[in-house]
């Protein structure tokens, strides 16, 4: 008997057929991968299983019995837990309170807090239960979600891209946890586009493309290329990382120290690095180690830095607001696309006005047709799937919005670009395209700084790497001389010349 069986599930939305007669069977204790690009229908399918969306057609069998899962509460009652890719946490509440909301009301909050701490220790998921969610980084929020799901002791656990924010060292313990859960009889639905992970972890793999099942395979017997063909109908384009000689320093950071702006932030201490023209510098590290603070200081959203601490092409800009830095050629692509990189309710054309000045004439007069033309040009050049320049930013999928935002900044012809998590939650094809664009920008002579938690990505495109840990930045290392193991070690704050408080960091 199968733990879960889906028979011919279909779901239509006004504009799109999200699932088209999808069938899937998960055995008890099986780790079952669902592989597909963004927009392939994975998320809709998972929401149907989790009761958040009702199918138009098809049957769901849970342990051999036909069920109608009307709501997530009902799914949880059956023993289904889910870790969403886009988090469903209340910003104003603490991690523990958020977890508490999903549990039976009879359990006291103190118990929940203790169980979170315990769960964090057992599964190596570093979560401080007392911190309000709005102060957590994306990676930390995901860990809260995973802990929340595990606390319900599920018989089917659905994980949506769970490793995207973990260090390489943390992936293996998570896999060990998942294997342990599976050995205990818990079934796992593992959604990912990381082919290596699926091949090492999963027992079975269902591939979706355009809402239909295009393959059911044993991933261990497949190659990355064959999985990729099933997923996108082609092999992913190969990136060409041409050798280049870096030019003059573009972004120079010297002795940058900043006290945290809120009490859950990270203090930056004595940060020094430089990014030269015609090179990509990668900043590796687990989120919540000062990336947000460093990025805000670089972009000009935080202007508290000493003027000399940040130099742009030789000019001290530590106190300059974003627009003056942009005028000097520094553009920035933030990690949060909706709400920071773009205004959700405004159209793509209007969103060009956040960082682009071409559609603005004298006295601030907005040339509306220019803005629309610019948006249309970006849509075409960067292959964005959107309803047109008038489509609201929130109507785009994560990957397409990211292509648009990356396009908006690259098309501005920046001399220096700072980008955070360029391909987080973006599908394989779009990620390859974005990385290709970053490389092209570097080859054209720009300085690029990439902050990412995806080590594969950093190794793929960067010329040099630094690691950020507890508000400090390591010395740089040529990518060719670095190994994931070494970078992973540095991520816990241990590099050759240990900072004064290295002992404390290592013991934490």
């Amino acid at each position: 008997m199968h733990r879960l069986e889906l028979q011919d599930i279909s779901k239509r939305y006004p504009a799109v057929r999200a699932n088209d007669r999808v069938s899937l069977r998960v055995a008890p204790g099986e780790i079952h991968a669902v592989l597909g690009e963004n927009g392939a229908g994975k998320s809709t399918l998972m929401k149907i299983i989790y009761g958040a969306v009702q199918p138009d057609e098809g049957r769901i069998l849970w342990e051999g019995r036909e069920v109608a899962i009307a709501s997530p509460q009902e799914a949880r009652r059956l023993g289904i837990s889910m870790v969403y890719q886009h988090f469903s946490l209340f910003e104003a509440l603490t991690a523990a309170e958020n977890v508490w909301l999903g549990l039976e009301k009879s359990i006291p909050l103190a118990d929940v807090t203790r169980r979170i701490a315990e769960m964090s220790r057992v599964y190596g998921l570093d979560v401080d239960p007392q911190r309000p969610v709005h102060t957590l980084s994306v990676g930390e929020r995901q860990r809260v979600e995973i802990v929340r799901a595990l606390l319900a002791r599920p018989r089917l656990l659905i994980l949506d891209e769970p490793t995207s924010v973990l260090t390489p060292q943390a992936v293996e313990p998570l896999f060990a946890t998942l294997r342990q859960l599976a050995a205990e009889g818990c079934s796992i639905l593992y959604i990912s586009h990381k082919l290596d992970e699926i091949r090492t972890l999963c027992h079975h793999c269902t591939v979706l493309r355009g809402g239909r099942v295009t393959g059911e395979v044993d991933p261990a017997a497949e190659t990355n290329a064959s999985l990729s063909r099933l997923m996108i109908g082609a092999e992913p384009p190969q990136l060409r990382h041409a050798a280049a000689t870096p030019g003059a320093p573009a972004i120079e950071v010297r002795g940058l120290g900043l006290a945290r702006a809120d009490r859950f932030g990270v203090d930056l201490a004595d940060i020094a690095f430089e990014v030269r023209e015609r090179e990509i510098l990668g900043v590796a590290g687990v989120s919540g180690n000062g990336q947000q603070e460093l990025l805000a200081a670089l972009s000009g959203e935080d202007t508290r830095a000493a003027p000399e601490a940040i130099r742009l092409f030789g000019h001290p800009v530590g106190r300059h607001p974003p627009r003056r830095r942009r005028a000097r050629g520094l553009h920035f692509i933030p990690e949060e696309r909706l709400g920071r990189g773009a205004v959700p309710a405004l159209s793509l054309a209007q969103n060009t006005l956040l960082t682009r000045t071409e559609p603005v004439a004298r006295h601030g007069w907005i040339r509306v047709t220019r803005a629309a033309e610019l948006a249309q040009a970006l849509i075409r050049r960067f292959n964005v799937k959107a309803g047109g320049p008038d489509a609201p930013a929130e109507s785009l999928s994560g990957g397409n919005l990211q292509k648009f935002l990356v396009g908006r900044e690259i098309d501005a012809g920046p001399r220096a670009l700072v980008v955070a998590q360029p391909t987080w939650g973006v599908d394989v094809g779009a990620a390859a395209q974005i990385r290709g664009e970053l490389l092209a920008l570097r080859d054209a002579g720009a300085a690029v700084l990439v902050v990412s938690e995806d080590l594969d990505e950093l190794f793929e495109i960067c010329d040099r790497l630094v690691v950020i840990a507890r508000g400090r930045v390591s010395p740089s290392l040529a990518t060719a001389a670095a190994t994931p193991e070494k970078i992973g070690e540095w991520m816990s704050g241990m590099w050759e010349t240990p900072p004064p408080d290295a002992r404390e960091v290592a013991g934490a």
Partner: protein
Amino acid sequence: MPRLETRPAPSRAFAVASPLIALALTVACGIALFALLGKDPARGLSMFFVEPFRGAYGISEIAVKATPLMLIGLGLAVCFRANVWNIGAEGQYILGAIAASGVAMQAGPGTGRWIVVALLLAGVAGGMAWAALVAFLRDRMNANEVLVSLMLVYVAEQLLGWLVYGPWKDPQGYNFPQTITFLDPTKIPRLVAGLRVHAGFVVALLAVAACWLFLFRFRAGFALQVGGLAPAAARYAGFSSRAALWTALLVSGGAAGLAGAFEVAGPLGQLTPYVPAGYGFAAIIVAYVGRLHPVGIAFSALLMSLFYIGGELAQSRLGLPKSLTGVFQGLLLFSLLACDTLIHYRVRWRAALPSRAAPAQAGSRP
């Protein structure tokens, strides 16, 4: 059990239909209300929706009352779009009226018509100054602008009272609390001889266009709205939140002050304790019923003005309480907010679906 379900995309049809349904609901409630009060509902409704349009005088009166509502509502729309909650337009309106009166009282028999421009500018300055207090306290002391602006309304009323009972009282006014009747050169030009509708109505219509241009064609207006919609995006873009705060409050204060100036130098012709007629608060409803859009506000100001006149007619001809006006205005806002839910949600009449749901159901009527 009916329940609400999020629509995949906001419904355009309901965005248009919602104000109309809200108006229909308001009328329905009105009919019930008239019936309960023992009046003929048809006659009651005609006081609100037919009688005001009888003749040029009625139409002129609609325009007279719509003028301050439109001006203040436009300013508030700018404020609310910037996420700045100016609830004290009434106070800014009073200060505009006071400042304009101060200028008007300087006129002598030989004063030129230029004084109209001077008193209007004084009105704008007065409203701006009152709003600037709110901006300053929020900017420097992080004081909540809702409370500060609201409390300044009462301060403004006291200031007005002190002036008309004290230093500005007309010596020949039989001790009534009022200023002198302003001299002719200070009068706002009327549009049609014999009717009270004045140049302020034209200015209000021009303000609709100006407000539209500011919000949708100038970067300053755009930046202000980004700050209201997504503060993090405004910081990212480098739009100053302080500039947005000051701009929003100065624009809405200035607009309210201008409305006050038009009122004292137009239909009233003198400063009295009855200058604050609640336009500053009613304009909040005007702004929302008009969906914070300048053109919508032009229409909603006319509609609200209709309610004022209907209320007066219902009082004088049917002997109904004048507070009916407020009831109607409140009902309209209330039903509009309720109907707006249907833009983002649809009603489903069945709680749980069977596992084999009919595919046609999504399109079926509730």
